[in-house]
C-alpha cells in the first residue's frame, strides 16, 4: 500500500504543503496540529492491505473499535491529487480515493480503517472523515467539535465507550438466556420485548456518551420480576433505568450519598435521552 508522504511521521505540529491549487482563501501552508490524528494516520499506514475485516472486541486496537462503533470508513490515500474540495463542517468528495469499501452493521464486523488528511487551512482543517454515516457524524461532529474531541483524547474516549458497549451487550445477551426461576425461587425470565428495549437503551447510552464526551459507569443486572435494571453513575449522580417490556422506569439521585431520589418517572425509549443527558452533564 502506498503511503502518502504528506502524512506526518511524528506527533508534533507539522507544516505540510497544501496540494490544492486555486483556492484563494486557502493559505499555502496549513498546520497539521492534532497529535492523535497523526498517530491515527501512522497506525493506519501500517495496515498492509486496503481492505481488512476486523472483529470488534475489547482486545482489538482502538482504531478498529472506533470503526466498529461509528462505521467510519476513512480511506487510504493511494496517490497524489486526492484533494478535491474542502469546507468547514462538510465532508469531502471521495472520487480520488480507493474503492471497494462497504458499510457494516452497527457493532458487527468493522470495515477497513484507514486515514487520509484533507485540505489544510489556517486555523482549522476539515475532511478527516471522507465518508461517514450518522453514528460517525455523531462522534466526529463539526470541525470545531472535532477539535474539542481531540483535546480530551478521542482515542481513549472511543476505546472506553466501545469497551463499555461491548460489556453491556455481552451482559445483556447472557441475561436474555436466563430461564424462569433463575434466582432459585420464583424469578421470571427476561421477555423478548424487555431485551429489545434494553438493547436500544445501550445504543442510546453509547450515543449520549459520544456526543457529550463523557462515559458514565453503567452496570446491568436482572431483577426477579423479569425486568432489567441499568445502574449508571457519573461523578456525583446516579441513575436507575428499569426496563419492563417497552416501559422504562427512571429514578435519579444527586449527590451519590443522598438517600432520597430527585424523582421517579415512567417513560419509554424516546423519553430516556433527557435523563441520560442529565447524567453526563
Amino acid at each position, binding site marked *: 500500500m502506498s503511503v502518502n508522504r504528506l502524512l506526518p511521521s511524528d506527533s508534533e505540529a507539522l507544516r505540510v504543503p497544501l496540494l490544492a491549487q486555486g483556492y484563494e482563501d486557502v493559505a499555502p501552508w496549513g498546520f497539521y496540529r492534532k497529535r492523535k490524528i497523526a498517530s491515527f494516520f501512522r497506525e493506519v499506514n501500517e495496515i498492509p492491505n486496503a481492505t481488512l475485516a476486523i472483529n470488534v472486541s475489547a482486545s482489538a486496537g482502538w482504531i478498529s473499535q472506533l470503526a466498529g462503533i461509528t462505521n467510519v470508513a476513512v480511506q487510504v490515500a493511494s496517490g497524489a491529487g486526492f484533494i478535491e474540495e474542502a469546507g468547514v463542517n462538510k465532508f469531502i468528495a471521495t472520487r480520488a480515493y480507493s474503492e471497494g469499501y462497504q458499510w457494516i452493521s452497527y457493532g458487527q464486523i468493522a470495515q477497513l480503517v484507514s486515514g487520509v488528511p484533507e485540505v489544510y487551512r489556517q486555523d482549522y482543517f476539515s475532511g478527516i472523515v471522507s465518508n461517514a454515516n450518522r453514528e460517525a457524524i455523531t462522534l466526529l461532529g463539526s470541525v470545531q467539535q472535532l477539535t474539542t474531541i481531540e483535546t480530551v483524547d478521542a482515542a481513549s474516549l472511543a476505546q472506553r465507550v466501545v469497551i463499555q458497549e461491548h460489556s453491556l451487550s455481552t451482559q445483556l445477551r447472557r441475561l436474555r438466556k436466563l430461564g424462569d426461576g433463575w434466582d432459585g425461587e420464583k424469578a421470571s425470565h427476561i421477555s423478548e420485548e424487555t431485551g429489545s428495549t434494553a438493547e436500544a437503551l445501550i445504543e442510546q447510552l453509547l450515543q449520549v456518551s459520544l456526543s457529550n464526551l463523557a462515559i458514565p459507569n453503567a452496570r446491568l*443486572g436482572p431483577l426477579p420480576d423479569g425486568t432489567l*435494571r441499568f445502574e449508571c453513575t457519573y461523578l456525583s449522580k446516579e441513575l436507575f433505568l428499569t426496563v419492563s417490556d417497552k416501559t422504562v422506569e427512571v429514578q435519579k439521585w444527586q449527590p451519590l450519598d443522598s438517600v432520597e431520589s430527585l424523582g421517579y418517572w415512567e417513560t419509554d425509549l424516546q423519553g430516556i435521552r433527557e435523563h441520560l443527558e442529565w447524567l453526563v452533564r
Partner: protein
Amino acid sequence: MAGEVAPPPVLVPTDSLYRGINPQFYENGVVLSGVFCLKKRDTLEDSPSVGIEKLISLDKFHSLMGTGWGVGQFPVSVPKNLGLTLHPFPHLPWGEYADAHALITGYQSLGKKKLGDVERALRDAVRQNVRIPPVTSASPYASI
C-alpha cells in the same frame, strides 16, 4: 427445658445482619440493587431474608447459601433508619440456626419512588461490606 419455645431475639441497632448475594446481582465486583428487590405486592414470605450475625457464624450462614453465592454484612440500624421492620422469622431448613433467620418488611406500603430509594440504600449498605464475594461464574441457583 424441652419443648420450650425460645423468645425472639432482641436486636439493637449495633447488631449486624448477613445478606446472601446471588451472583446475578454482582457485576464486575460490585453489588447491584437486585440484591434487595422490593415489591408492594410482596407477602411476608417474599420479603428479603437475612441472617442475624450474633446467632450464626459467617461461615455457617454462607454454607446455607447456594453455590457461588456471596455474603454481605450490614448493621441493623440501616433498615431501621429507612423505616423498615426487622421481623425474626424462624426458618426450619436452617436447622439449629433457624432462629438466626429474619425478614425485612414494612416496605409494602411505600410508593415506587420510595421503594427505589430503599433498594438503593440497602444495596449501598451491602456493597460497603462484602464479606464473601460471589463467584460470578457459578450457578445462580440457591439451595434455600
